[in-house]
């Protein structure tokens, strides 16, 4: 078994009287695709928000590669290599596709004010490098022809791909995808599955996935966590989860 990358234990999130997430625990290994599934309102996205630092969990520990990251603000979590996409795509709509990818590299490039004002060689090099990276990812996602268009004008499927590219260009170790297949057509879903496989193999990134599309989840995941009403029901390989009576009960109700 490969090394554990992300370890979440005893995660609880309470909003007033509502216990949205209750005692969730899981770990994601390096180069693993780990999926979280469950009926609507099961608390999947809340888990994402807690792991990503958008919510401060009520209790629980989130450890990334040995470093505790629970309670850190989201931009610091992102700098530990956890980057996410959003359920409803959040691109910088009025910026161009290329600019979206340039912004995402902010933490890796020369942001010194003076070197930028005087265009020092170091600054030029860092900008050129950022452009090259962006071009590489545009090619990879097959959206280079739209590079100078405003991101909000892209087709929905392309926006999804751009959002993933924008995450990948930050060089994450764990990519968190929140319902990446929502709104995609069957062909695009198949492409997405191939893309997730490719990202894992070529870039060695672990993937944490929330998804409702069962064929995608079963096809791409190594392990699956099933949640219901904020509680974890079971964790296991796709085949085991599919046969689990508790999971069937959660989805279909009791006979």
């Amino acid at each position: 078994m490969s090394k554990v990358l992300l370890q979440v234990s005893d995660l609880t999130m309470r909003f007033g009287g509502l216990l949205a997430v209750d005692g969730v625990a899981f770990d994601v290994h390096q180069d693993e695709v780990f999926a979280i599934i469950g009926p609507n309102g099961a608390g999947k996205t809340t888990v994402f928000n807690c792991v990503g630092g958008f919510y401060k969990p009520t209790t629980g520990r989130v450890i990334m590669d040995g470093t505790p990251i629970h309670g850190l603000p989201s931009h610091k979590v992102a700098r530990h290599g956890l980057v996410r996409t959003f359920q409803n795509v959040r691109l910088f709509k009025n910026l161009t596709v290329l600019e979206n990818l340039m912004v995402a590299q902010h933490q890796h490039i020369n942001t010194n004010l003076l070197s930028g004002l005087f265009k020092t060689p170091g600054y030029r090099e860092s900008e050129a490098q950022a452009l090259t990276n962006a071009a590489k990812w545009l090619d990879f996602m097959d959206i280079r022809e739209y590079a100078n268009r405003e991101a909000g004008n892209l087709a929905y499927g392309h926006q999804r791909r751009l959002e993933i590219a924008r995450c990948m260009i930050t060089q994450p170790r764990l990519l968190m995808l929140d319902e990446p297949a929502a709104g995609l057509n069957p062909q695009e879903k198949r492409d997405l599955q191939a893309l997730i496989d490719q990202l894992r193999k070529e870039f060695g990134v672990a993937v944490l996935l929330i998804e409702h599309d069962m064929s995608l989840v079963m096809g791409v995941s190594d392990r699956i966590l099933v949640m219901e009403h904020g509680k974890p029901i079971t964790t296991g390989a796709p085949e085991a989860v599919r046969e689990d009576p508790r999971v069937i009960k959660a989805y279909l109700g009791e006979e």
Partner: protein
Amino acid sequence: MASNIKNAFIAAIMAGVIIAPVYGLQIVRSGMQTHLEPEWDLVFIGMGIVFVFQAFIRPLIGKLLGKRGSAIRLPVLHDRSRRAAILLLIAIALIFPFFMGRAEVDIATLVLIYVMLGLGLNIVVGFAGLLDLGFVGFYAVGAYTYALLYHWAGWGFWEALPLAGAMSGLFGYLLGFPVLRLRGDYLAIVTLGFGEIIRLLLINLYGFTGGPDGISGIPKPTVFGMPMTRRAPEGQTTFHEFMGWQFDNMDVIIYLYLMALALALITLFVSNRVIRMPIGRAWEALREDEIACRSLGLNPTNIKLSAFTMGATFAGFGGAFFAARQGLVNPESFTFLESALILAIVVLGGMGSQVGVILAAIVLTVLPEVAREFAEYRMMIFGLVMVLMMMWRPQGLLPMTRPHVELNR
């Protein structure tokens, strides 16, 4: 047509309600008594004009515009033509004062101060999308920094200028902290309050700032240490003695103008570069979506603070120059109306567009000077222009052009 008439009728009645108290009821004084004398003719004429305009002329305009489509669309400037336009403007600006009279150069200097302020606010509002209604506060800080340094420590303009910028920048940074979590209208209210606090402090710290009287006798900038005055203080040479010229007040005005031009050009250069730099991209990204920014590891705190600080710094330079030019500062110069004017320059020019801001600064400063006879209607015309702009060209005179970086296919 029927709906047109109905709309026009309602508009005419509304107009009547609005004008009646102003024109319909004249206050007449006879001896000790004042009484109201109704004068309905003016009101009815006004209502008639509104009715005719709404019922007949407006549909006509709509038809004309509709036919020609986007006939009133101004050109969107592209990179190369924009550079050419900027160079041309600079060339004109450089030779301008030598052919003009004193009043014109004076107004032009004022325009340049507003260009500087507009470009500074453009960073905060246009680039970073943070609505700042208290920008004049930073302008005041800059002006008073120089004035106070002169008054209490005898500093000259050139020593005080960097400090005035730094001081305003510091205030921008400090204001940034409490407003970090606010956006939109809430932010606008807090910044509005900040501008007022500065003004009220200046009025009430009587012993330190001179209160409502302000500080006067502030010296004009020197030329390499030589004062530009008729007579130099003991042991100094004035500029005109050094050059062997006759003293001429016009020289001082041209000198001030050229200095304002230099400061405005520096502001233009910096804001033009900065928007193409990582920090500028981060500002724009933050304006679009703060949560997405955070998810990518961008620290919104630093990014917002940098926008506030940089905008305020330019206001500070503008303020110090303003103090030097006027020779006198008092809190009257830093009212909310001034903030509104600077904001109007940014909105009218097109948020984020530097050339647009320059154009709007010229329009909004020169127009009131040209139309001095209509001085009483200034605010009304001002309001009308804003309303018309929002209706027909909400993106401003010259909207910002995208993209700043391009990728070849």
